[in-house]
């Protein structure tokens, strides 16, 4: 009975409710967190790096390796798309220079799965780590973030331009 009621309600609001959930939860979350929500990098898990977004990185993780597409990136909102090509469940960490402070982490990357770690990173030196088997120190490597104009979202930046371009093409598609 409940499920019927719910599904009917969901159908009624289907489109607006998504935006509603998204915006309201983002607002709810981000209010106390300053900026809990962030823009997803245009180059996503599909590995579409054609645009050459220097902040969209890929990580190929296996049971014995942790290969990053690049070991440096400009500061701002960086996306690590971590693909697990091994047989063990893995985790990906971005540590501070001391190798202890967790800057960001994504868990539960099962074999065959790609998951993204999205985070705002300040210029500086960092350490990346894959943890196949979810234990130990993991496979570590240095990572550096150079100073750039973009300190997170806002302002004149690549993401903004790309977003505008997406919107233009969406309008074009609609008018066709």
């Amino acid at each position, binding site marked *: 009975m*409940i499920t019927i009621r719910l599904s009917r309600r969901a159908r009624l609001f289907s489109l607006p409710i998504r935006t509603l959930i998204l915006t309201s939860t983002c607002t709810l*979350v981000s209010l106390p967190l300053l900026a*809990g*929500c962030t823009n997803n990098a245009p180059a996503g*898990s599909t590995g579409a790096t054609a645009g050459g977004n220097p902040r969209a990185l890929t990580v190929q993780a296996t049971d014995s390796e942790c290969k990053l597409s690049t070991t440096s990136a400009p500061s701002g909102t960086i996306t690590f798309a971590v693909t697990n090509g091994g047989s063990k*469940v893995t985790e990906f960490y971005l540590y501070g220079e001391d190798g202890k402070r967790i800057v960001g982490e994504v868990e539960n990357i*099962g074999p*065959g799965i790609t998951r993204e770690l*999205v985070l705002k990173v300040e210029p500086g030196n960092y350490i990346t780590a894959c943890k196949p088997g979810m234990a130990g120190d993991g496979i570590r490597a240095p990572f550096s973030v150079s100073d750039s104009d973009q300190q997170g979202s806002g302002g004149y930046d690549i993401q903004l331009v790309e*977003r505008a371009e997406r919107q233009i093409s969406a309008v074009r598609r609609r008018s066709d």
Partner: protein
Amino acid sequence: MLANFLIGLREGLEAALIVSILVAYLVKSGRRHLLPQIWLGVAIAVAVSLGFGAALTFGPKGLTFEAQELIGGLLSIVAVGFVTWMIFWMAKAARSLSGELRSQIDKAADASRWSLAIVALLAVGREGLETALFLWAATQTAAQGTGSTAGPLLGAALGLLVAVVLGYLIYRGALKINLSRFFTWTGAFLIVIAAGVLAYGVHDLQEAQFLPGLNNLAFDVSGAIPPTSWYGTLLKGVFNFSPATTVLEAIAWLGYFIPTMTIFLYQKRQRTQGPSRQTPEPVAASGRK
């Protein structure tokens, strides 16, 4: 497949156990009319988690690491509060079952109606977002063009399914044992679960830098209990046992477990002593007959 199966099992187990104990309790104590509230709580948690997870996965906005950890951590701590309330509410309602009037019990139960929905909602929703993000990532793997495989999604779904089945078996088993034993065991069991959830929440907040001491370990038995093993999965899934536990996690666990269990057992003793002191009267009354 197996690894993804174990993730699904781990993420689903604890929620399945809490909900099945709650349902078993309501059925055993003749409060079936409160069941819709439980299912509503579960349905909302699943819908919001999947919806929010999908929006974050496929939409233009993502969630920062800190925000996700803070959600997980705070929801865990709130969940501990509600599960603790549930333990003592069940115990209190059990006491009133023997002594007080039936109408009084039902009034009390009605007042707690929405709290029950929230318990179910939090039990499922606590790790719902992380599970949803994992499931959607597995779905992406199944749906993308080249090298797509449904293996991970299938494994994850099977894991969740097994968690639900285990919950159902616990429910069936719980129906068979007598009520007072049921309260003692489920109560004690839930206290251990809640202590684990609290420790987990503390760890999330430590990871997000809201609490210090992430690298200050109390013990590390990852060698003896690998997190990828089936027993590591069960320990993590049911009791949130982390092979590498920080000092603050251990303090939180003990700081919750010791007083809560003490109060619970003390109340239980009072409960069992209470009726026994009263028993002579009915016996005397029947003797007069």
